[in-house]
């Protein structure tokens, strides 16, 4: 369970490790989008971690990276096909971002640092934690943008008017992510100061 908490807070892929930011900026216009992509990434992360962890003894050290890439690409293709078959409307909104999961540095890095050394169970929870961190990050950005941009959450009109259309425009993704990162930074500095005082 500590691994999960790690993935969400201390090593949150979007806000702390600053990896895989492409979708965070691009399609986090609504909570629903963030949720769906987050689930896709969670699925790929967990499956890849488990697969690599299961075959870690068979991987020749010189072909590590191609093997990781192959595994990730396989699982991405699978989730891509499943989503396009069963949820075509939502899939159309995400465009090519589902296919681009294969290029996310976070998944490859996680496999390199964790899955190829740790047993299957630990890899599963680590992958789950990372994916969950990504999911929560995407949903929170989507929440802010949707609320401020179209006054709705998950499609339900909450405010009844549109405060700042700017936030739905794709470029606002940059601003929101930047501000949220600053917020996380602030929390970290705050904690360090507190610890500093105590010590």
């Amino acid at each position: 369970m500590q691994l999960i908490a790690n993935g969400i807070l201390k090593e949150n892929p979007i806000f702390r490790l600053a990896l895989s930011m492409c979708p965070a900026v691009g399609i986090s216009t609504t909570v629903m989008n963030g949720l769906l992509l987050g689930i896709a990434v969670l699925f790929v992360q967990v499956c890849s971690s488990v697969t690599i962890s299961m075959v870690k003894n068979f991987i020749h050290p010189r072909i590590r990276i191609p093997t990781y890439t192959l595994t990730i690409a396989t699982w991405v293709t699978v989730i891509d096909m499943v989503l396009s078959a069963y949820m075509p409307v939502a899939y159309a909104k995400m465009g090519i971002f589902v296919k681009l999961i294969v290029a996310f540095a976070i998944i490859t890095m996680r496999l390199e640092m964790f899955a190829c050394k740790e047993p299957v169970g630990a890899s599963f929870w680590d992958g789950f934690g990372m994916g969950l961190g990504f999911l929560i990050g995407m949903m929170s950005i989507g929440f802010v943008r949707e609320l401020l941009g179209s006054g709705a959450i998950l499609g339900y009109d909450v405010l009844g008017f549109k405060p700042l259309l700017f936030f739905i425009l794709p470029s606002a993704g940059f601003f929101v992510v930047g501000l949220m990162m600053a917020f996380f930074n602030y929390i970290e500095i705050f904690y360090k100061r507190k610890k500093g005082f105590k010590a």
Partner: protein
Amino acid sequence: MKDIVTIIFRLTLSCLVAGFIMGTFFILTSKAKKHNEHVNEEKVMYSLLGYKDASEIPDSLKFYELYRYVVSGPGGKFIGYLVPTGGGKDGGHSFVSLDLTGKLADIKKVSISSENAMDKDSRDKAIAAALGSGKDILYADKTIIVSENAGRNAYLVTGKFPGFKNFVSVMLALKPDFSVQGLAILEHEEDPGLGAEIEKDYFKNQFIDKSFETLKTLDVVKEPIPEKYLKALENRMQKDEAEKIRRQFKNHDIYALTGATISSRSVTNGVRGIVQKFAYRLNILDTVLKEQKIVVPF
């Protein structure tokens, strides 16, 4: 040396396993994909005709698909229609070829059931077989004729035209006199909050009840929608009051979306183009069907 051999062996093995997994999933999901596409299309069709879902449709309402092809061969270019001729359990079809001036060129019988005709590959194959070699066929578009008791209730036409960014794909429901019964936006790539508002009711519903003559000269006007009209379009008032207001604005131009004049214009021009071309072609086809006394179930 042994190293390289092991590497290649393991890599090939993993590639094969990966390919196998993906292949299985592909076969499993492609059927579901086709089915879901069909279901989504039906949902849009039913909502355009005013029904909430499939259960509200009366049993006497039938849907007939009319497919249009462009046939090029040694004799020049022809427009061919795959017309359902009804009768018999097989639900036979006829392929009616018209030359470019609208005169009948050829009629060939095509035996294919309505379900199989919905799949593009089987349809193309059946038509090519009926026409013989030497002719190239290119699929153009499809019209759905909604019929009740051998009469015509509505036409469902799809079309694609350029919007502000890339293409906009729409489905129109037309009454037999070619006035607009409903408009549904199927696909677009417009900006969210600006051009994407073409999906909203207060824009789409402005097209409802516009007659064929009004469509010919329909333009976009850059004024805000009057409050009452807006309420009527979004179905926020009593039905008879809404009717009265709609009738008032029946021949008015389309009110443009704020900050999306170009998108509004492209939709207006696109709808006009689709309806004009459809009316022209259907009239020609009807004339020929009547002359040749071809029996059709609508």
